[in-house]
């Protein structure tokens, strides 16, 4: 008899680490995702009992896969017609036959690419990835994205239905489509990360769980596609950003800007890991994630805000804007302009972005402008900009920060 606590921990750990792997391998046998999900769910349920009786197996993932596949084969045998109706994913294996390592790799990648297929809406891609690759329940996903559970359930069902009705293929795209398709996968993972990193609404600035899932996915992708520079770039970006996690929030839960963070509280191990990835990247021609990681890397190794290599940050932003002409990037670049060329030059850039109009309603545009006006001692205009930013903010920690700044001007 094994310790029940240890068994339930082992099941939870296997759920977190191996769900996507078990599901992908089972989907190959089951022929469709719904049946595969059901069988994997059953296998996890059976694990609790079996492992209590026989002890935790040496390879929980393999045990779960074998169990789930066996259940899938049984179900298919019971309902022979199912396979004719749902030819998607069918590639039956004999009982007990385990996939070789390369196939496992392929299966998980296929699952990720299917979840992030461009024929699915971005929000559906995110929901499916969390559900199928990470094994989150619909209730958990709904909570993370602040929608009701029925709404999220409907979203997941619609997406799965489209996969089967439109025959979205279960495969890794060919070389010609890979860059675009991979970008969609990386965007989904990055979206998970940023959603967890800065919760857009509510009191929690950080939603650790999403951040952890995104990092897990980043590592899995890196393992599966070791030669893709952008995969490496995304993992580096997430590591270097998350390294600042503990320093981002003050003891009272308030937001602490990079400028004022206690750098001794940054996670040195994560930074080291990220920096190694960045230096590998910079030997090639980095893409948008790689360049963002490189910028985060410059900050990560700087002893202080003032002693940051700002000209290098600005150079990297210029390169990033060429690769990815995005107004939010242009806005972030103005901070480097401020540090290299001063507040007047930075304000000119911000006003140009304001005139462009694509960022209207973006809360960080107003708050950046407010900060620059404050530095230029144009207090009345700064106060107006802070008020505008306050109207747009919906995160408590950020709101408190802006109110504090506004009070400082009005005092």
């Amino acid at each position, binding site marked *: 008899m094994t310790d029940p606590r240890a068994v339930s921990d082992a099941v939870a750990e296997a759920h977190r680490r191996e769900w996507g792997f078990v599901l992908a391998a089972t989907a190959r046998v089951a022929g469709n995702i719904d049946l595969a999900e059901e069988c994997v769910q059953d296998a996890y349920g059976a694990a609790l009992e079996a492992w209590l009786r026989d002890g935790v197996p040496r390879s929980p993932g393999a045990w779960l896969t074998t169990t789930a596949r066996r259940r899938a084969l049984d179900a298919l045998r019971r309902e022979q017609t199912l396979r004719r*109706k749902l030819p998607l994913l069918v590639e039956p294996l004999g009982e007990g036959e385990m996939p070789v390592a390369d196939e496992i790799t392929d299966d998980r990648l296929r699952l990720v690419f299917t979840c992030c297929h461009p*024929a699915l809406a971005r929000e559906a891609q995110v929901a499916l990835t969390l559900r199928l690759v990470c094994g989150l329940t619909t209730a958990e996903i709904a909570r993370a994205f602040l929608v009701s559970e029925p709404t999220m359930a409907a979203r997941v069902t619609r997406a799965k239905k489209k996969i089967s009705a439109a*025959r979205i293929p279960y495969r890794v795209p060919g070389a010609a*489509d890979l860059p675009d398709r991979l970008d969609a996968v990386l965007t989904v993972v990055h979206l998970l990360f940023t959603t967890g990193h800065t919760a857009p609404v509510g009191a929690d600035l950080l939603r650790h769980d999403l951040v952890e899932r995104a990092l897990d996915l980043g590592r899995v992708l890196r393992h599966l596609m070791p030669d893709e520079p952008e995969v490496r770039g995304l993992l580096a970006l997430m590591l270097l950003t998350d390294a600042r996690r503990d320093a981002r929030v003050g003891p009272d839960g308030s937001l602490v800007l990079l400028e004022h963070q206690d750098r001794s509280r940054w996670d040195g191990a994560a930074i080291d890991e990220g920096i190694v990835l960045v230096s590998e990247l910079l030997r090639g021609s980095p893409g948008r994630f790689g360049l963002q990681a490189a910028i985060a890397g410059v900050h990560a190794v700087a002893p202080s805000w003032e002693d940051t290599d700002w000209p290098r940050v600005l150079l990297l932003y210029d390169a990033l804007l060429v690769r990815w002409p995005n107004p939010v990037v242009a806005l972030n670049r103005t901070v480097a302009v401020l540090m290299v060329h001063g507040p007047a030059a930075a304000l000119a850039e911000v006003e140009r972005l304001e005139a462009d109009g694509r960022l209207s309603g973006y809360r960080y545009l107003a708050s950046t402008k407010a900060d620059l006006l404050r530095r230029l001692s144009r207090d009345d205009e700064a106060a107006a900009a802070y008020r505008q930013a306050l109207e747009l903010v919906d995160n408590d920690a950020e709101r408190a920060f802006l109110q504090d700044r506004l009070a400082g001007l009005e005092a």
Partner: protein
Amino acid sequence: MSEYLILIYENEAGYADQDPALWQQAMEAHGKFAEQVTAMGAKILGGNALQPTATATSVRGDVVTDGPFAETKEALGGYYLVEASDLDQALAIGKLCPAPFGGVEVRPIMEFPEG
């Protein structure tokens, strides 16, 4: 293999002046499209161009009204029924399909279980 309908939605104004050169160009583009679809191992099962929406009549219940079912800037102007291996191939066909004044929508044909 599965069947998909490729619906061509375009701004009709693009074809309004009946310029013969433009017409010729469109015919050639569709001819080339057909060759490309065959070359990629898919099949065109059918297809047609439609008369403009000014010729449309809508029937809802017993009520007959002139004009298309929905007034949109980009109107359905033609379609292809194709057979493709999966959505990726159908989308590749969609990308090749000529629609200089708009775009195409790719819809899977519903399959009903036998028996």
